[in-house]
């Protein structure tokens, strides 16, 4: 019974992590997550997929989180073997398409953590689009690489290790 409850809780947390508030919108947020970092780190990245099911382009103009001082739309760009980050003013999701933010490329950069994050924590975020539409999402904190980590916690994840961009 206890394990059943645990499974149920895990399931519900999982659903909550999917997080999109659906109600009559063309925009869908999928699998929002925050790359787990050591407790002394104040800057982390969040990743997610933004789906636009509508006929018009959607433009992400702003993101914020009560758990951080600031959230920026960022992109890691490689020039040769040099990597640097660029701040984007906005991010356009074409109609009937989706944009995926993945490690090593597009990300939401969360700066000024108000408290240390632990694996499994949920980070509430608000994404604001050009249309004025606001979408709430809860990003779950998890390691990008699981087996390499020094036993913090074991969890399933959906293979973010082979991203190329």
């Amino acid at each position, binding site marked *: 019974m206890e394990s059943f409850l645990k499974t149920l809780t895990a399931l519900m947390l999982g659903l909550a992590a999917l997080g999109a508030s659906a109600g009559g919108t063309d925009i869908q947020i999928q699998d929002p997550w925050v*790359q*787990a*970092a*050591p*407790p*002394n*780190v*104040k*800057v*982390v*990245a969040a990743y997610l997929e933004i789906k636009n099911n509508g006929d018009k382009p959607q433009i992400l103009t702003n993101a914020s989180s009560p758990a951080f001082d600031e959230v920026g739309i*960022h992109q*890691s760009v*490689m020039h040769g*073997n*040099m*990597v*640097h*980050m660029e*701040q984007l003013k906005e991010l356009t999701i074409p109609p009937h398409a989706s944009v995926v933010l993945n*490690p*090593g*490329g597009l*990300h939401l*950069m*969360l*700066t000024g953590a108000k408290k240390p994050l632990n694996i499994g924590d949920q980070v509430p975020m608000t994404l604001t689009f050009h249309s004025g539409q606001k979408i709430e999402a809860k990003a779950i904190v998890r*390691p*990008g*690489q*699981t*087996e*390499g*980590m*020094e036993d*913090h916690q074991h969890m399933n994840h959906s293979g973010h*290790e*082979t*991203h*190329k*961009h």
Partner: protein
Amino acid sequence: MKNQSGALTKKILALLLVIAVAVTAVIGWRLGKGTSVRPPAEIEDYLFWQAKDLTDFKLMGADSKTLGLNDLKGKWSFIFFGYTHCPDVCPLTLGILGKAFKLMEKDPAAFQEVQGIFISVDPKRDTPELLKEYVSYFNNKFTGVTGDAAQLDALARQMSALYTIHPKEPGKSEDSYLVSHNSTVFLVDPQGRLYGRFPPPQTPQEIAEVFLKTRTFYNERSKKRWNLF
């Protein structure tokens, strides 16, 4: 007459012997050359055409420890330049390297020889103590070090690992500047020579497999060297 022909036979035999020895030596030398100098095709692209001797350097770690060229000797070192305020590529790469180390555990002798070194090119924000905590999160075989610009350049230049600290954007806090850095993982051999590199984007499987093959190649090659002399 019988004696004479016996001497001739001996001479011919001796000559044949000399030829046989010479041919064997040439074949052996060519074989040795073929297998030892050229690495297997699947690792060739990761290795420097010629291993490059590094000159000494001094970087600062936690607990007043320093890291220099001697600390690289006797180990295979995986070196990565970055900074802890890097939310995307640095944790990604350290995570990949940490997982690669886990995969190397299947070869205990090799695993025993590896170490990871994270060099922060942002000494203003990254103290050695902070780096220690940071790197141990990813793998307990990682060491975090940093230094002033001259100390960093002493090693970074030898690896062509350029980095740039950008000015902060106007209106933002003093501590919000960004840093561009090389995202290659460098491989230094147990003699302290720059031996190979893993350019981005890397995967744990790639790093682990290429390293294990590289180490085998390296060990066989040094064995052959000993046979020759």
